[in-house]
């Protein structure tokens, strides 16, 4: 462990330190505002630390971590997303829970877990990152413990996550038993040196997919998603939808490309089936869903299915597409759940479709943002989602994954139905009699509101002029691709 290592791991250290600092602060005095500001500062600090190392080629902190373009990109993405979630959280938690402070600790820890995932190159760090993330999430999901649904969601997530972690671990153990190493690159080396494929190794990979698939929320490991999305507090839902999945996607890419997963037709077949099944199940389940959070959960299932198309393409364009899509998907999901967050009141989250009836006329700006987010999810131009989907299709077409690409198209169409259904609800005439919802003081919304505006602007900006982002991804991924 050298000073260099520490320098490169600075973003993570800042996060960990921030968490500890927060905890100490709680011990001293519980002040929501200070915690909030501190958390924001920690994020900014981590981002600054990250900015410091943005130009690295590939740096290995032996044996657990590696920092390369992919890692830097995803770290930045995760940190920014987490920052946005934080920004949205203040107004949400201010009036819901008398103990809001632990939330920030847990959020920082969860972010740390996701960051660890992103830079892992070893089973141990993979596992630990995953668990830090998971364990924080258990509490975050059940954070509003007086809400029955929150608890239910928490326990469901806990048992299922632990359950799938067991699969993951067993799989890792098998891989380790066969290959004798737990480093991704080591496994890759082992595989390229052996001319034949061990079935046991394949089994190990298969069982690992269970664990990975659970975190990604893809079929058939997706069933937790709607319940947890619904039960969790809206900002946490946003976090699950984005950070937790994004971290896992980054890990999957790294694992697959370094361990040589693309070389097994069986693996590709499994992921193809998973991708198609996810698209269909997600979209079809969302079709008549009347709960927005569940609907978004289903939609995120299908979006992960889309994402896998580019992932399966595997080459540089594919990874670029995945990265780009992640950005678009993050912005969109944050925006969508952000709207839910903003609209939620003290008693419950605004997750019913009827809460949105006539929103376009009641709160035009919020509704417009939501519409933009939904259109982005549907992949309609002028939004980031369109460019993202375009990228995915391009990657798919480029590697001639015709089946997947066609499935993607079909599913985009199915998906369109429920997105525009929500939009239609928003522009329907509001019910004549409707008691005004209890709303917080407008000041509380200032940060949330500005966050939302920024997200919406980003969405449109990326949708219209994706050049900058594309160049960034392109540049950062060069090192990753070269390192493979």
């Amino acid at each position, binding site marked *: 462990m050298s000073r260099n290592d520490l320098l490169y791991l600075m973003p993570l250290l800042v996060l960990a330190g921030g968490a500890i600092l927060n905890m100490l602060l709680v011990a001293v005095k519980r002040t929501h505002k200070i915690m909030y500001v501190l958390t924001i500062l920690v994020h900014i600090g981590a981002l600054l630390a990250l900015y410091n190392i943005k130009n690295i080629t590939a740096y290995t902190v032996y044996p657990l971590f590696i920092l390369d373009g992919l890692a830097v990109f995803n770290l930045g993405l995760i940190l920014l997303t987490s920052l946005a979630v934080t920004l949205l959280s203040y107004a949400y938690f201010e009036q819901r829970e008398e103990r809001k402070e632990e939330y920030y600790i847990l959020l920082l820890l969860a972010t740390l877990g996701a960051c660890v995932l992103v830079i892992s190159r070893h089973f141990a760090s993979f596992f630990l990152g995953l668990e830090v993330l998971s364990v924080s999430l258990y509490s975050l999901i059940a954070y509003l413990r007086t809400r029955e649904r929150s608890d239910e969601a928490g*326990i469901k997530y806990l048992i299922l996550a632990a359950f799938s972690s067991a699969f993951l671990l067993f799989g890792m153990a098998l891989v380790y038993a066969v290959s004798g190493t737990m480093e991704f690159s080591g496994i890759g080396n082992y595989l390229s040196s052996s001319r034949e494929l061990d079935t046991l190794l394949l089994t190990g990979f298969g069982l690992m997919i269970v664990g990975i698939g659970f975190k990604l929320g893809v079929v058939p490991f997706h069933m937790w998603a709607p319940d947890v999305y619904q039960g969790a507090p809206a900002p946490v839902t946003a976090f699950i939808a984005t950070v937790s999945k994004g971290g896992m996607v980054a890990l999957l890419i790294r694992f697959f490309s370094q361990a040589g997963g693309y070389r097994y037709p069986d693996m590709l077949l499994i992921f193809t089936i998973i991708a198609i099944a996810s698209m269909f199940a997600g979209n079809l389940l969302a079709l008549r869903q009347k709960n927005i959070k569940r609907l978004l959960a289903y939609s995120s299932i299908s979006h992960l299915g889309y994402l896998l198309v580019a992932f399966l393409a595997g080459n540089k364009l594919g990874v670029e597409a995945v990265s780009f899509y992640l950005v678009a998907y993050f912005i969109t999901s944050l925006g969508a759940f952000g709207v839910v967050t903003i609209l939620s009141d003290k008693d419950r989250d605004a997750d019913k479709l009827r809460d949105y009836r006539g929103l376009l006329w009641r709160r035009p700006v919020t509704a417009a943002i939501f519409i933009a987010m939904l259109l982005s999810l549907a992949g309609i131009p002028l939004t980031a989602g369109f460019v993202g989907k375009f990228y995915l299709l391009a990657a798919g077409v480029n590697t001639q994954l015709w089946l997947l690409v066609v499935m993607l198209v079909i599913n985009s169409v199915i998906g369109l139905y429920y997105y525009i259904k929500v939009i239609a609800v928003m522009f329907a005439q509001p019910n004549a009699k409707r008691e005004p919802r209890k709303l917080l003081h407008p000041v509380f919304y200032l940060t949330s509101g500005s966050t939302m505006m920024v997200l919406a602007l980003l969405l449109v900006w990326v949708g219209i002029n994706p050049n900058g982002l594309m160049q960034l991804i392109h540049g950062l991924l060069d090192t990753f691709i070269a390192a493979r």
Partner: protein
Amino acid sequence: MENLLWLIPALPFAGALLLILFGRRMPRNLVAILGAGSVGISALITLLIGFQFLSARPDFYVQQVWTWFDVAGFTPGIAFHLDALSLVFVFVVTFVGFLIHVYSAGYMADEEDFARFFACMNLFVGSMLMLVLADNLLLLYLGWEGVGLCSYLLIGFWYKNPANGYAARKAFIITRVGDTAMAIGLFILFQTFGTLNIQAILSEAPQTWPIGSQMAVLVAFLLLGGAVGKSGQLPLQTWLPDAMAGPTPVSALIHAATMVTAGVYLIARTNVIFELAPAAMLAVAIIGAVTLLIAGCTALTQYDLKRVLAYSTISQIGYMFLALGVGAWSAGIFHFMIHAFFKALLFLCAGAIIIALHHEQDMRQMGGLRRALPVVFWTFLIGAASLAALPLVTAGFYSKDQILWYALAGERGNVWLYLAALVGAFITAIYTFRMVFITFYGEAKTHVSHPPGMVMVVPLIILAILSIVGGFIELPHNFAHLTLFSDLLQPVLPGIAVDETIGESEWMFQLLAAGVALVGVFLAYLFFYARRTAFEESIARSSLAMAIRQFWFSGWGFDKLYDTLFVRPFVYLANINKNDIIDSVYNGLAAFARSVNKGLSQTQSGIMRWYMMGVVVGAILILTISLLP
């Protein structure tokens, strides 16, 4: 003078336009003056141009107003072509049209939609003029369709009665069927010649197609289809009787001057093509012969005065077709002209009767009108005589005799055609005088309330005169060598060669024709004027006769046939598919998606153990896939 040619169709159009735009705010007199006047001036110009044409005797005169459009060498113009044939038609259209307009001013005097009526009438005349003056087939087609439109508007003039509307639609749709055939003919012509200019086609066709060539026959048949539709010939004749729903002047216009004669014009105009297609010629003749018989028989049984006239028109046009079909081009056109006179006359008389009897059209409710409406009676009688071709004194005799003669003696003629024509003449005489006797003789059944005014009577008289003297410009050559009409048409329409072997006995056949007409009149007298004898009564009342009468009355069941063959299936198809079967495919897809959604929703039971089962199943599947080769 020829520079004014464009004014002939333009004036009625202008009149129509003015009437459409401002008609509702004009005083009625002005409407009538504008309506009749515009056609009148056209007629005047026609006369002027006609004189000039006759004196200068050019083959034809063309005036290009502008190029309609120019696509890939296809450059039809808005251009008018005047030659003898069009001159005859223009003359008839403007002149008879003018008379009908004048008459209408009186006839429609009580009508509230006066302006609309005249606007449509003007449009009608204008379209017809466009048709006959067109120098290319596309412009002809414009007039052709315009005529259809106007017939639609005028037949359905009294739109408040839905039946009239249906009659109007029927007319438009059925003629459109023919038009479609014609349009296809135009496609072929264009493809072959690269132009639709009539003169160009006619001059090139003989070089391109040998006589009897398949293409020529095809084109001729297609054009014939169009002609048949417009002219109310078999098998598209069914619209014509129903077209009587319109005001009577309209019927006169349709039957005498415009519309129905368009088919005759088209065939005459494209005579070269028909000459190249003997089969089509024969078809034209046969269609004419059969139509004239069928329509004649139907006319025998009708009670509606106008329907009798309508069927008689069909029948007379059948004569013209027969003439054209046997190659007696100028005879056909001659008959057209004469027919225009007397048929307009008959219709206008009928109109006078009808309006005098408060819109009563059923002949059984008439009778004894001879005294109540003397002028009408005499003019009607003249018209009827002409229609029945009473020998020597009527114009109809001369024109029809020519046709009969050429049907037998012409090089394309034969005995059967002649016999059909002869029988037709016989029937014509019967139903014509049946009409005369029932309407004007016997006892009065309905009181006459509105005797026609001068505006209506004058056109009647003029037409009556024409119906008599019109025939003297072209006499059979065993009478005298007076062939003004066919001479006039000589440059446009080829003459007809006569089979010399029977040429000698022409007078015998003339005698036969005259006799047949007279016998017909006599029979009508027996059955419909004099008290019937028991024998006659038994014939009339026999069940066979009744059945035949019923059959004929219904127009030989054509309406019913078409109803079952085309209309019903179409309506049936339309009705069963009202909600678009294809739509249900998509709705089915949506329903399928919904049911899948329902099924999948069951998996999201909210029960944790079930979710774990999902994970386990997934794991098993993955392992199984790994195990598979």
